[in-house]
């Protein structure tokens, strides 16, 4: 079964599709995700029609618990990027639900 596609594999696919040297395709891919990261860093949302949108969600602080010691710990307020899948992608993925799934390792 195929493993998850990595950034370098995405770069290779783009280099082939656009007939570009790999280093050029790498610059393009890095530029896109760096531009998007910088927008999120400014607190700005991103909308890519057909693919999805990214927003920054604010989470309030709360008192959590250290599961090992069972002691209360203060969790500070934080922001997290949130992705809402676009209609096109959502429908496309749902329509292929019969295909085998590459669950892979989803932790970064």
């Amino acid at each position, binding site marked *: 079964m195929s493993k998850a596609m990595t950034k370098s594999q*995405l770069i290779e696919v783009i280099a082939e599709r656009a007939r570009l040297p790999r280093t050029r395709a790498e610059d393009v891919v890095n*530029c896109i995700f760096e531009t*998007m990261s910088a927008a999120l860093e*400014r607190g700005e949302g991103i909308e*890519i029609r057909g693919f*999805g949108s990214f927003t920054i969600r604010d989470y309030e602080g709360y008192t959590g618990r250290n599961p090992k010691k069972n002691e209360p710990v203060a969790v500070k307020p934080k922001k*997290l990027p949130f992705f809402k899948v676009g209609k096109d992608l959502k429908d496309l993925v749902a329509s292929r*639900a019969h295909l085998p*799934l590459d669950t892979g390792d989803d932790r970064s």
Partner: protein
Amino acid sequence: MTKAEIIESVYSLVGGFSKKEASDLVEAIFETMKETLASGRAIKLSGFGNFVVRDKASRPGLNPKTLARIRLDERRIVRFRPSLVLKLRVNGGRAPRAGAEKKMLSRVAAANDERE
């Protein structure tokens, strides 16, 4: 931020492409990602995050408006797990940056400074 601004960023920061070429490249990247996810394959973008595909079992649910009991069918969904680097960045933290991305990062940062 819209796709048009991402295209503009590729056009002005990577350079050497026409506006049309920059646009085609950005489209090709999101198209490739869509096709990959549709085929049931996850995408891992180091420094940004992972897009994963999950199968959800059918379960009982409620119609939020009418509160009527309904059955939610089994379905396949896409989820995004932001990377630690991105989570640190949106919280104002400094994140470690890899060599290959450094060059592009400083160019984007310089463009942002000009904007401000």
